[in-house]
């Protein structure tokens, strides 16, 4: 009907040409919109991917830095403590000892034995700091309780732990990772929060194991954690995050409704021992 009306004023040719051109440009516009939109989306996705890669790089760097610091600490412990102790023991047990009086010899051997005992203890301590024997032999609950007992022994802070559902142990690797995360969190609380107590609760629901640390000091919230995670500082928090990623878990930093206690909750998917 429209074309019949237009025909009288514009003529067949004009209607046809205008209609065809209109449709053609509409199609071209549509295609252009699709192409430009897709390019924008791809650019945006690439930016996000790049940011994620940078974040991964930062976490990796933090992890490497942490390993290096750990190695340096072990090297320093061995060099500064074990080295002089063993050197001293060697001095006691030098070649001239056989020319000495028996009483002097006995005294020297006794001193050397004392020093070697100290060295053994020192090396054991270093070894325990790398892999707590309680964790390996008795599991996470025992290791955490052991750690908390040591903290309580200092008398500065009151630490307690309660495991509600720990009948099935996680695998060794997971237990070690969780232990390191909890250890780091507890160390941070002791160092920075001026808390009077720390309480750890463990529970499990379905396939998820939950750990929650309460403390009454000055804590951080989720947004602070995310911010610090992207900063160049906060090596410990980056390590926590990278370990959480390895565990495919989640971590939440919150404050309770009364704004009295800060809480850190960790969710880890359970994996039964084979």
């Amino acid at each position, binding site marked *: 009907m429209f*074309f019949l009306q237009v025909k009288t004023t514009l*003529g*067949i*040719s004009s*209607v*046809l*040409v205008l*209609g*065809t051109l209109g*449709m*053609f440009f*509409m*199609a*071209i516009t*549509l*295609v252009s919109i*699709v*192409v430009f*939109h*897709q*390019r924008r*989306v*791809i650019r945006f*996705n*690439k930016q996000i991917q790049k940011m994620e890669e940078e974040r991964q790089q930062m976490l990796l760097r933090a992890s490497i830095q942490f390993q290096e610091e750990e190695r340096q600490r072990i090297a320093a412990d061995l060099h500064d403590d074990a080295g002089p102790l063993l050197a001293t023991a060697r001095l006691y047990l030098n070649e001239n000892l056989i020319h000495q009086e028996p009483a002097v010899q006995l005294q020297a051997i006794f001193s050397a034995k004392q020093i070697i005992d100290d060295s053994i203890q020192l090396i054991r301590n270093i070894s325990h700091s790398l892999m707590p024997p309680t964790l390996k032999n008795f599991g996470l609950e025992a290791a955490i309780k052991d750690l908390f007992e040591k903290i309580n022994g200092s008398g500065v802070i009151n630490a307690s732990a309660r495991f509600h559902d720990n009948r099935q142990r996680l695998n060794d690797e997971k237990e070690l990772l969780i232990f390191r995360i909890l250890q780091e969190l507890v160390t941070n609380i002791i160092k920075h929060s001026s808390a009077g107590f720390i309480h750890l609760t463990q529970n499990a629901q379905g396939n998820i194991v939950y750990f929650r640390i309460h403390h009454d000091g000055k804590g951080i919230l989720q947004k602070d954690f995310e911010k610090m995670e992207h900063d160049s500082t906060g090596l410990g928090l980056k390590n926590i995050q990278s370990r959480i990623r390895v565990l495919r878990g989640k971590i939440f930093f919150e404050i309770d409704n009364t704004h009295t206690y800060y809480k850190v909750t960790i969710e880890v998917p359970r994996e039964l021992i084979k």
Partner: protein
Amino acid sequence: MFYFLFKRNSKDKALRVILLYILYCIVNEGMSLYLQSFGSPNTVYLFLLFTIVEYSFFCYFIYLILPRDLIKKSIFYIWVGFLLFAFIDYVFFSKPREWDSIVSGVECIIVFFLCIYYLYSQIKGTDSLLIYSTFNFWIVIAFLIYFSGTFFLYLMADRMMSNPAFQKLYFIINISFNILKNILLCVAMTMKLNHTVKQQKSVIPDLGDDLLFTNKIN
């Protein structure tokens, strides 16, 4: 080129459909010219058949390239519906030896809809591949532009074909958009050809030298 594409992409159904469509277009053009040289009035039936076959090729092609969803499932019903519509229009409403303007118009609208839906599905998808580097995109664009350009032409053809001015314009517009469609189809084929060559290069295992090297050592 046809041989190369057929041989190298024998499993690519979408490409086969398009190649068959191109072959059909060539045969149809030849037959149309042959019939017109006799002055036969049956050319109109050839066009009606062309509309249906072209639509069928397009439906099958779009069915192959669309992601699995409701529209893909309903393409078969859309195709059957169109065939029924064309049959009813031809038997009950069209005069003998008349242009199938209504059928062509409906075909154009369905093709627009399916093309736009394809483009929408491409936008929605998370594929990081640029849309214009794909074979399917250029084929869809070829159909979209061809049908948008000839939409008014076919719609007005049944009433205006007797007008000499319209006949002249019909020839120009139809030829122009046919050429444009063929250019776009060529671009699509080039995309496919480049992709195939790249694939061929990438799948050649670089083991020959290593094996020779190992033999020499032994």
